């Protein structure tokens, strides 16, 4: 319990530092109003935006206000989103809260990440365990080559090839878009290649190490079927590095599979970050990054909790002398 509290406090500190970094970085790269409106903007327009967004106050006041607003769930108003013309001083009345824009994108990101990991985890683990159970066999070599290919393949090339083959030639799946379950398959597969490779590699080495340990012989001597020895006895012990890798890969997917979202026109967070960057929409950039950071922190927290479920020696919070 003490551990859990400690971890949550740590996570909160990390989030706070991220928020601060994002805020000050946004101010350091120049005048936000000028960045957004461009060099040709009139002084009046700039002044209007500054006043509307509170950019004229001392920076520490702005920072303080930003943090306090965040705590109440207010991430600010988009400078640009939903406007056909440049915003005026009535920004707060007609502008759209950035948090709504970000939250609107989250389901698509979650869906894609879940689908990609849905492919990657079972396939990667199965490949890794098979390779470890028969080291130096043909299966092991195939897994080694495939996992290396998965890790090193260029994502947009793979995405395009999949589109050419499955969507254009065979016509089985749509080339892009969002809505039906068919839409998710190609982007998810494209995204899964790298996690499959890395999970297979980690699983192989972790299971191989476990299979050499004495308790495996104990299980054989008890008459436990070989598959059960491999998939239950060794895999549970090998799970920690595997779960760590899954967590890392999942974090990577949540921070935006920018290329893949672009290729398949998938309306996720990655695409949103790119769009808001190109439009210099500072509140939206900040909100996207903070939300993504929160997600990554959550994933790490879950991975940590999973350790304790998987390894009783960690669960009790003590290491043996």
């Amino acid at each position, binding site marked *: 319990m003490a551990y859990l509290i400690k971890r949550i406090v740590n996570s909160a500190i990390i989030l706070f530092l991220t928020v601060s970094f994002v805020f000050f970085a946004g101010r350091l790269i120049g005048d936000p109003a000028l960045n957004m409106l461009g060099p040709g903007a009139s002084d009046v327009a700039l002044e209007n935006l500054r006043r509307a967004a509170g950019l004229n106050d001392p920076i520490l006041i702005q920072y303080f206000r930003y943090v306090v607003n965040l705590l109440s769930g207010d991430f600010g108003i988009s400078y640009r989103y939903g406007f056909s013309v440049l915003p005026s001083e009535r920004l707060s009345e007609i502008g759209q809260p950035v948090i709504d824009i970000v939250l609107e994108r989250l389901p698509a990101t979650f869906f894609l990440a879940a689908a990609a990991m849905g492919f990657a985890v079972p396939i990667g683990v199965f490949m890794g365990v098979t390779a470890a159970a028969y080291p130096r066999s043909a299966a092991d070599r195939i897994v080694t080559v495939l996992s290396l290919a998965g890790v090193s393949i260029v994502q947009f090339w793979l995405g395009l090839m999949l589109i050419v083959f499955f969507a254009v030639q065979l016509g089985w799946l749509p080339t892009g878009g969002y809505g039906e379950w068919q839409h998710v398959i190609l982007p998810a597969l494209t995204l899964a290649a790298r996690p499959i490779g890395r999970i297979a590699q980690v699983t192989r080495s972790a299971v191989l190490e476990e299979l050499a340990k004495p308790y495996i012989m104990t299980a054989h001597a008890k008459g*436990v079927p070989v598959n059960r020895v491999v998939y239950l006895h060794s895999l549970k012990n090998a799970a920690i590095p595997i779960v760590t890798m899954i967590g890392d890969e999942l974090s990577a997917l949540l921070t935006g599979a920018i290329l893949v979202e672009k290729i398949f026109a998938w309306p996720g967070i990655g695409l949103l970050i790119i769009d808001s960057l190109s439009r210099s929409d500072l509140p939206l950039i900040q909100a996207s990054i903070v939300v993504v950071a929160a997600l990554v922190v959550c994933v790490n927290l879950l991975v940590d909790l999973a350790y304790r479920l998987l390894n009783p020696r960690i669960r009790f919070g003590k290491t*043996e002398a």
Partner: protein
Amino acid sequence: MAESVLIRTDNLKVQFPSKTGPVTAVEDISFSVRPGEIVCIVGESGSGKSVTSFSLMQLVKFNGGMISGGAITLHRRDGTTVDLRNASEDQMRGIRGNEIGMIFQEPMTALNPAFTVGWQMAEGLRIHMGLNRVQADRRSLELLRMVRISEPENRLRQYPHELSGGMRQRVMIAMALACKPHLLIADEPTTALDVTVQAEILGLIDLLREETGAAILLITHDMAVVAQMADRVVVMFRGRKVEEGPVRRILSEPQHEYTKALLAAVPKLGDMSQKPNPEPLKIVGERYRGPAKPLIAGKRQLLTVSGLVKRFPVRGGLFGRTTANVHAVENVSFGINDNETLALVGESGSGKSVTGRSILRLEEPDSGKVEFENRNVLALDSTEMRDLRRNMQMVFQDPFGSLNPHKQLFDQVAEPIRNFRLDHGSALEDRVANLFDRVHLPRSFLRRYPVELSGGQRQRVAIARALAPNPKFIVADEAVSALDVSVQAQVLNLMLELQADLGISYLFISHDVAVVERVAHRVAVMYLGRIVEIGSRQDVLENPQHGYTKTLIAAVPTLDPDADVRGRVKTLSKVPSAIFPAGYEPEPPEYDEISNGHYVLKNEKQ
């Protein structure tokens, strides 16, 4: 006659495939085990005894081996016989853990760390006997009571790391006996355990044989274990059986040269009674040289340790504060004279290694005083300390880990000489070559790498390296514990020879009372961080006063087949520990002087 044999191997041959073709691990092994009998297979590392035991259930294939010849005949419960060499995997699964149970050497790693004791015990019962979870738990409780573990209900819910080594080995035994097998194979079941725990486990195995009627095939390297346990003995050497017979005949009239050598190399507690000074062991095949001169300890005090304390913090809580301390070394005092060996004997966790390391400041002690030749060691700065280490060297337990695998042996032994700039050029080369002569290694080894050497040879290199700067004092931390008994005898003799010739003092740290009796002038017994008894070897070992010393000596297995092993079985509960809450300051120990120089810790009020 066929009915009276439970399992029989005929001309068993096991090979391991390698790049250069199959390597034969064992060959031509024939023996049998009758119901209810204890048969010991004894041999040193590489003798093939474990491979033999792993072959009986075809387990050797999980290690990459294959049974390439012979037959293994098992008489099954239902009266049929089966050749285990050719049995299918399905058939084997029904036999493993069901008709034949097996326990292994390392109780720390032979249980799966990720599952509870109860789950692991139930698994076999559910597979073989089709019990459901509740029935399996009930049977597991019965089994844990049978192996005399306290609070069995709680144990079922615990994980292996929460149990002590002795308790884990009891769980292993209970698990192996779960389905009432007719044969229990025990592969070095007590090698990794402390001697007092070993005595209990051996007693338990003997008792369970009577209670369950299971025959036992015991694999061991330890002749004393053989003497205590076996009805019949199979002696193995380099993959072959060299001798077989009833235990009494093997012990009293060994026929084969190897058996004779093995028996001669075992230090036996009591051999040295009435002899005031250490003496080398007789080694069969070597002309007995006898002590070159009596190994009489000097009169000048070389090292004085007083009030040495070392504690390790146990951290916990929200901010990682120190909540408790492990009192690894608690107020330890002793002295060593020149040309003298003081043995520090105790079981794992007694603090004997930390004491040795603290003296050399490989571990910074918390308080106390260490004086070496009247210099206050703990007050020296790093330059002075470095200088002092010329005179204080160390030999470690693990001859595989303590040598750098990427360096030639010459460079490893030359390193301390170079570091202290004692010699260079051809003088250095001569000096290292002489050190190799000194430890009886051929000079052709100078340019070799550690991987080409056996354990005993490596330990000789480690000793040569320790000798290199001409030290006056060597800490030998379990220096012979990892070695086979015949090699151990040679290394012990070498250490005694070096003391006789060079006048070195040793702090000889060991868990093995019989070895200590061979080499020590004086003995200090450590328990939970304290010295409980210290005095001359004869006083401490022949007239022990402290309760723990008595227990320790009584637990040492002897070569007497009539010794009582069952009296030691007791129900195991909590293990005493040296962990105390933060801030706890134990009172300084008080000692009674029994006779001149023989001190015994007064029993503490607890």
